[in-house]
């Protein structure tokens, strides 16, 4: 039972989520309050997780006589909770990313125009439950825990994307997400059944031991992994499992779109890295690299002709995951570091764009690209911030996104047989410039026909500034983030 302390953050968030549900029944009119409570709860948990990195020990664990089993160059690992949930630097790194993302998304949700009459207690509660699901996913050391975590995430996601009951597109997107989510869980479970047959256990450790001790894998194992990757691929919107993303992103309320585009992806990537950090001997490198190339290219080409910003960002987030997959393909220590660096920076730069979109669309009530027209004349600061985010997403220095891309390319270049993948990746970043800059084009080269000013609420400004700070600082002084990532995996 002492191990429960290691799950304290998750337990706390689950309890808070339930409390919010009950609380809302008594005070249904308190819209802002629930978001504030949610943010405070998440900030507490985030502080707890950050304390882990600052002190190098799980806060509170020592009081329960739990000591790390492995400490090396900043890598800290505790015994698994109940033999199924990892408590180590890698998991907590992704938890920090996810928590930071969800906090910013709750900021984005405050004052969103479609939420004026929505039950925000339920909304925040679902967000917290999804967060718990993601925190378990990145720490799963057993595939069954992963399935439960995925389901918790999926169900919350599904309700959240259909949260605007009055708009058909929102419900359409939610149902697509639901069907695809169920289907992908089925595939994942199917993979697990074979996995169990192959290893005689559902523990992730079996696979990690196999990867470390074998030179090559047989076809059966590769096939099992393909099923598992496909199951996660739906969550990542990895091509060819991406078809649901554009419709769901467009239909969902914008803060939920922001959520979908960063948090579940970070979680699924966290689990993918845990599973496949050293996949060289598992025989899936060819298929992974083809999937990475397809994900980047389909995402970018799909984004080229979109006129709706949310739809464009849906395709853009597919492409961004593609770059991260390139680093997954590279694997090993440098690949894992690149995955983490890119994911971290991606979360902030992408949420920055969403913050800008929400500020602009609050008054215009439109998410078409021309909604940004003439923004430089209305608010130079906001326009320049958006330029920074979009440059960062393209991967132009000195923005954070470039450091991420640089780390990705640096992980793939030493493997000369994967040079083609690096070339595909750089060509894709040229293509992406074209559509990201369609927004810049509107902001700076076009006059607005709508006199409405962008909307600056404290919460939105807060979110924008945090995103801006991380994007710029990670670009100009990347020592911190790179050093942190390096210490997390203990190399």
């Amino acid at each position: 039972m002492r191990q429960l302390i290691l799950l304290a953050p998750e337990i706390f968030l689950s309890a808070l989520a339930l409390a919010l549900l009950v609380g809302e029944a008594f005070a249904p009119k308190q819209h802002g309050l629930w978001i504030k409570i949610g943010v405070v709860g998440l900030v507490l948990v985030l502080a707890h997780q950050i304390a882990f990195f600052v002190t190098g020990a799980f806060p509170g664990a020592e009081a329960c006589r739990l000591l790390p089993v492995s400490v090396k160059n900043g890598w800290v690992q505790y015994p698994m909770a109940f033999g199924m949930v990892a408590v180590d630097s890698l998991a907590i790194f992704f938890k920090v990313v996810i928590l930071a993302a969800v906090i910013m998304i709750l900021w984005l949700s405050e004052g969103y125009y479609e939420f004026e009459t929505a039950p925000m207690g339920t909304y925040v509660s679902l967000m917290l439950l999804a967060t718990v699901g993601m925190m378990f996913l990145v720490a799963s050391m057993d595939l069954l825990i992963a399935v439960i975590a995925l389901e918790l995430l999926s169900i919350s996601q599904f309700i959240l994307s259909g949260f605007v009951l009055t708009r058909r597109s929102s419900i359409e997107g939610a149902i697509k997400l639901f069907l695809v989510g169920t289907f992908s869980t089925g595939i994942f479970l199917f993979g697990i059944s074979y996995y169990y047959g192959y290893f005689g256990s559902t523990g992730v450790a079996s696979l990690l031991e196999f990867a470390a001790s074998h030179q090559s894998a047989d076809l059966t194992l590769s096939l099992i992994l393909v099923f598992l990757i496909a199951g996660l691929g739906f969550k990542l919107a990895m091509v060819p499992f991406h078809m649901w993303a554009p419709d769901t992103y467009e239909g969902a309320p914008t803060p939920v779109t922001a959520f979908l585009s960063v948090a579940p992806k970070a979680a699924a990537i966290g689990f993918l890295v845990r599973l496949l950090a050293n996949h060289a001997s598992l025989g899936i490198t060819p298929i992974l690299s083809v999937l990475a190339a397809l994900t980047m290219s389909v995402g970018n080409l799909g984004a080229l002709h979109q006129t709706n910003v949310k739809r464009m960002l849906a395709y853009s987030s597919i492409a961004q995951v593609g770059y991260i997959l390139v680093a997954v393909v590279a694997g090993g220590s440098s690949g894992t570091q690149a995955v983490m660096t890119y994911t971290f920076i991606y979360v902030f730069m992408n949420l920055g764009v969403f913050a800008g979109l929400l500020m602009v669309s609050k008054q215009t009530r439109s998410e078409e690209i021309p909604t940004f027209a003439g923004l430089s004349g209305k608010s130079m600061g906001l326009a320049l911030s958006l330029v920074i985010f979009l440059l960062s997403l393209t991967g132009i220095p000195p923005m954070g996104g470039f450091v991420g891309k640089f780390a990705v390319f640096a992980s793939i270049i030493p493997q000369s047989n994967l040079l083609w993948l690096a070339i595909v990746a750089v060509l894709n970043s040229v293509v992406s410039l074209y559509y990201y800059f369609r927004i810049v084009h509107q902001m700076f080269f076009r006059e607005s026909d709508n006199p409405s000013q962008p909307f600056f609420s404290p919460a939105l400004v807060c979110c924008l500034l945090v995103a801006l700070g991380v994007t710029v600082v990670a670009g100009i002084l990347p020592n911190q983030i790179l050093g942190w990532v390096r210490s997390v995996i203990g190399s």
Partner: protein
Amino acid sequence: MNNFCVLSLITFLPLIGGILILLSKNENSGLHRTIATIFSGATFLISVLLLLSFDSASSSIQFLENIPWIRTFNINYHLGIDGLSFPLLLLTTFLSLISIIASYGIDKRTKEYFFWFMLLETGMLGLFVSLDFFLFYVFWEITLVPMYFLIGVWGGPKREYAAVKFFLFTLFGSVFMLLSMLAIYFASGTGLPGSERTFDLIKLVELSHSGQLQLAGTAAMLVFLGLYLAFAIKVPAFPFHTWLPLAHVEAPTAVSVILAGVLLKMGTYGILRVLYPILPEATRAFLPVLVVIATINIVYGAFCAMAQKDMKRMVAYSSVNHMGYCLLGMAAVMGNPNAAHAGMSGAVLQMVNHGLITGSLFLLVGVIYDRAHTRDIDAFGGLGTRIPIFAGLMIMQAMASLGLPSLAGFVSEFLCFLGAFGGSFGHTNFKIWTVISVIGILVTAAFFLKMLKLVLMGEFNPKWEGHMPDMTPRELVTVVPLAVMTLVLGVYPAFALRLMDSTLTQLIKIVSGQF
């Protein structure tokens, strides 16, 4: 002079000015101009003061700054200048100041305009002073963004298309530079203690020379081509020149000056700074191709210029032709030592001269465009008698551009040809290509003289009656310094050649493997 951080000061002073402009009020365009002028003026002054303490006899790097930046990848904030970068640094601060003054006529969104301009200046200066490949790349990319806005907001009718085409073209090249850069990095060591990998351009030259750079054969050639693509697009070398006429024609006058005067030099500078010393073997193998490309640039650029009706377009194509001379001079690096030295000096001098001459030609074309709102060669005539000061300057700079002795263009073009005539690689010599290139000179003379005839001589077009005052003092302030420098470098080029002499001697030794 205390040279601590002086290069950082030069590089970031314009950016500080830019940020001040950004913080000022929207409407106060006078203030924006003043801040921009003061900061770029100060930058120019400091860079000129460097002349006093710059030791031109030494081929080593001067005014060094070296601070660790990104430890994970062993990237340093490494700045310094030598005889190759210093002339270009001076050119950049000089042309930037001139262009800022030439931009006083801009009255639309001045705050943004001058902010982007100052950011652009920082990017260009940073590029010329960086000695770390990563830093070089960062500054290379930084210049793209302001250029995109400067063309896209303040340009001509097709500005938006021109801006995005410029950005996409250059980015296409630079992503391959990124890959090649990483390949060089991973070839520079094993990453274990004692054999750290590096992006340091100076260390890379040493590693390459001592054979420790693990790049050879096909791999080296691929890396070379990746970098060459990035630089060739910028130069622009045939067949990557198609973005240039469009960008030039659409850009506002002052931006064209910077584009032709400095941005194109980033390409040739990159070739000399990175490709020549770090990949000498691949460079040598590539020289026979380079000389052909140079010849095409010269001849094809000249013929294209001749076909233009739009004066700005004509000057833009003449840039393709003039950068061809520069490439031709660079191709001579493997000839006999004297020829190589002449060719390389000519190439670097041509970079500077082209900046001065073409810069002033763009300004002069801008002068009549401001008055007539057309640049059509056929729309004018007889301007020589109406606006004699303009005519005089126009004739002088056109003559400089076509290579009249005693003006700057002649010296550098002559040196380029001299070098290329003695240039060779293995058993092939470049004489035939040099001879073909001379046709370019002829055509250049033809189209400039034709332009002068149509615009300055003949009947005055009565349509412009009353619309054609002579140059204003502000316009003179921008053009005359360039004209004076053209004359100075034409009569006494030794002043500039001495600056670059020892660095180029060293570079030739490195490339030819006699070092």
